[in-house]
């Protein structure tokens, strides 16, 4: 962003630019998904659970879904706690866009 972000003067990059950058990312996501965005996640979670259950026994709270939106890419992180055999959680990472 600002070339002068690290200059000796304790001046920070203009906050208005930060505001614009944040909004640009957010609005692109909100528009891009046709205002439906947050709604498919619960349904998708259920589908994912159903698929996993075809192969193993897991409880609802053993699956965790997180999302991080970034400028050009969003990452969707699905963490599944595996019962018995493996103690540590297995992470499956999927990327969108």
């Amino acid at each position, binding site marked *: 962003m600002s070339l002068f972000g690290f200059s000796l003067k304790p001046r920070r990059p203009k*906050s*208005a630019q*930060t*505001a614009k950058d*944040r909004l640009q*990312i*957010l609005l692109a996501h*909100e528009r891009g998904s046709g*205002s*439906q*965005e*947050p*709604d498919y*996640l*619960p349904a998708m*979670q259920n589908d994912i659970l159903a698929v996993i259950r075809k192969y193993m026994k897991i409880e*609802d*709270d053993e699956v*965790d*879904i*997180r*999302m*991080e*939106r*970034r400028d050009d890419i969003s990452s969707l992180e699905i963490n599944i706690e595996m019962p018995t055999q493996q103690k540590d959680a297995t992470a499956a990472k999927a990327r969108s866009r």
Partner: protein
Amino acid sequence: MTQLKEDGPRGRVIVITSGKGGVGKTTSAAAISAAIAKRGHKVVVIDFDVGLRNLDMIMGCERRVVFDFINVVQGDARLSQALIKDKRVDTLSILPTSQTRDKDALTSEGVEKVLDELRKDFDYIICDSPAGIERGAQMAMYYADEAVVVTNPEVSSVRDSDRVLGLLASKTQRAEKGLEPVKSQVLLTRHDQGRIDRGEMMAVEDVLELLAVPLLGIVPESTAVLRASNVGMPVVLDAPSSAASAYEDAVARLLGEDVPMRIGSDKRPGLLGRFFGRSA
């Protein structure tokens, strides 16, 4: 401070409300939550403004929202999935609202269930109310133990605050069950001493005389508020400012400390004052 952590109230529900829109509820909810959390208490701040999600932007976590309050109320997600942990203060969490639903998505049973679950984990539950006095605002205040009524020294804001104080005294669970009333206090924001001196704006005493409830604090009009919102920081986590000090003082009073009332301002201290934040 530490002793408050031990025997302080667990799961105290505090609604930030106002009636009138745009007076500084969300700014205050973010600042108050962060200031309480900074003291080591576990705090969650909930966005009740369904359909107009904004708390996430003010808190700077807008990119991390996956599930929201409505998903939890409707049983589509677990509370732990919807809670976002603040990256700066580890005792602070945010429960964002939905951007796509409307206020009818909230039911009082659903809200009660979520609050009951939050009480187990948090010392303070801060509810950022939508503007107005209808369903959404009533839902935000219904389970409150305390209320912070955000008021600007201006006629319509004072009038709306009075309406809201009436609702807090009658349309809350505490009122309906005949329990100890909701403890309501006024937070005067966007205070501008210059305009008061010129007779353009009502003074603090005028507002208090009209509303007849205790004063929690006086937050000056400050450029720091806009700056902080630009970068997604609650104002008390950003660089020192008159507004940040005012919120810190208000929170000390909210937690029962005896802090003398003072009126800060952006203007008087000049450049240095900006860094050291304070004025008389």
